[in-house]
């Protein structure tokens, strides 16, 4: 049922035959452009995706530099392309953003008693965080607090971190002109108020738009399958799923934890094509889990909503929160998230 209809050679209706001849000979990109122009939003699911490989990052950098990205909970947003953003002006941007934040805080919007308003903002590029050479460089924004007391050392405390990246964003890069920088995935860690302030500044300065990236149950089950498929030397955490049962007055949560090696064994028995994950394999993997649960508890998990998936590679929540645990598969995880962000922008 998941196979696509093949283009048959049966005679078509004569009414729009010329139109159909155009489509039969068109390249996939032309077909997609045509369907976008005709306002049909039928985008077929890719029937297969690549398993994230243990890929080396584009430039050799040591794990220490990106270690601060792991084991932190990031809130996800999708971001439209930035207009006239330049990587050479980063110092200028940090100055402008610090001034903006100071002004906002003095307006009384985010007043915290006892905290000094000496905030320092840094913009820096994250080298090597890209999928292909064409991807835009990833960059990092941090809000640090400057300590006033001379007795403390000069270390600044990080209050808020946000970073922008684009991994394998080819489909978006093709559609924008030279003036735009595409960094569709934005990850933020820290206080919500700071995220809002930084977001407002970016929206005003670069004419872009942030929107929270929610991950629906369909994509969460893909993530579960892809991350279980990753080869790991040692498993740090059990594979856990969390479902939410809609019922009144309060929703119930069902949590299901599996030993990671058992999950991998199950995946291996389902997996056929090397190096790729198909829709059927994901469905079969999840169905095995559902039927096992049903046999023991007589509950149909497929009627509930998958809310959280947690594996040794990463964990994701449907509200758009992600925590990456494994350095080896960082790029692979970000590639899938970039794909979701681009899909949301389109």
């Amino acid at each position, binding site marked *: *049922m*998941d196979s*696509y*209809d093949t*283009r048959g050679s049966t005679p*078509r*209706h004569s*009414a*729009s035959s010329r*139109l*159909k001849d155009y*489509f*039969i000979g068109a390249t996939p990109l032309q*077909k997609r452009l*045509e*369907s976008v122009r*005709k306002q*049909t939003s*039928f*985008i*077929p*699911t890719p029937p297969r995706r690549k398993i994230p490989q243990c890929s080396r990052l584009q430039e050799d950098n040591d794990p220490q530099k990106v270690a601060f990205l792991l084991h932190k909970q990031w809130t996800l947003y999708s971001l439209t392309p930035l207009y006239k953003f330049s990587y050479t002006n980063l110092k200028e941007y940090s100055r402008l953003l610090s001034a903006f934040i100071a002004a906002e805080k003095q307006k009384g919007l985010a007043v915290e008693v006892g905290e000094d308003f000496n905030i320092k903002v840094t913009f820096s590029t994250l080298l090597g965080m890209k999928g292909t050479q064409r991807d835009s460089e990833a960059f990092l924004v941090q809000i640090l607090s400057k300590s006033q007391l001379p007795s403390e050392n000069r270390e600044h405390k990080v209050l808020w971190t946000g970073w922008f990246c684009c991994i394998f964003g080819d489909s978006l890069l093709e559609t924008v002109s030279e003036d735009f920088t595409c960094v569709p995935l934005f990850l933020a860690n820290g206080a919500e108020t700071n995220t809002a302030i930084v977001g407002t500044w970016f929206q005003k300065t670069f004419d872009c738009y942030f929107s929270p990236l*929610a*991950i*629906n*149950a*369909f994509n969460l*089950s893909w993530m579960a399958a892809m991350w279980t498929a990753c080869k790991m030397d040692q498993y740090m955490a059990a594979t856990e799923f969390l479902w939410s049962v809609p019922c009144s007055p309060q929703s119930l949560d069902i949590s299901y934890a599996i030993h990671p090696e058992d999950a991998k064994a199950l995946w291996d028995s389902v997996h056929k094509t090397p190096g790729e994950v198909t829709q059927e394999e994901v469905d079969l993997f*999840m169905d095995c889990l559902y039927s096992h649960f049903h046999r023991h508890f007589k509950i*149909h998990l*497929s*009627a*509930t*909503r*998958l809310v959280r998936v947690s594996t040794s590679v990463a964990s994701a929540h*449907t509200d758009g929160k992600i925590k990456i645990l494994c350095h080896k598969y960082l790029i692979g995880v970000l590639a899938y998230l970039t794909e979701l962000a681009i899909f949301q922008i389109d």
Partner: protein
Amino acid sequence: MLKEDCASELKVFSFFSHLARSLPLPSNMNRPRIDLIMFVVNLHSKYSLRNVEESLRHVDATFFLGKVGFLATGAGRESHCSVHRSTVVRLARTYRSPLLFCDPEVDGFRVPVAQRLVRMLQICAGHVPGVSALNLLSLLRSSENPTLEDL
């Protein structure tokens, strides 16, 4: 809710709608002739899709000449969907039947869908002179975007 809207549309004829969780229906009851079967798939639940797929096997082949339709609910809340829209589109295409989308919670949406369903039902029951269920089916199919067939 959809049922009430349908009932309010049909004022002249008597209208029975029977809601069932799955087919086949128990055979020990007398029931009037079935004119239209609408399979409701909740996009938030894979279980409802599996149920519909199971039930489709129990439907007699003659119903598929225009007397079967699919109604997909819950497409509006994308973040809650566990069934991809294209899965349901493919299902409807495999069975050559029309597919409607509806969000019963959204008020403005319900009434037009109810009107469409009632119109389909009138045609399938033979109450509209000159149009049969099969005519309606071929009309609906040719108005589909041609790129859907070619992709």
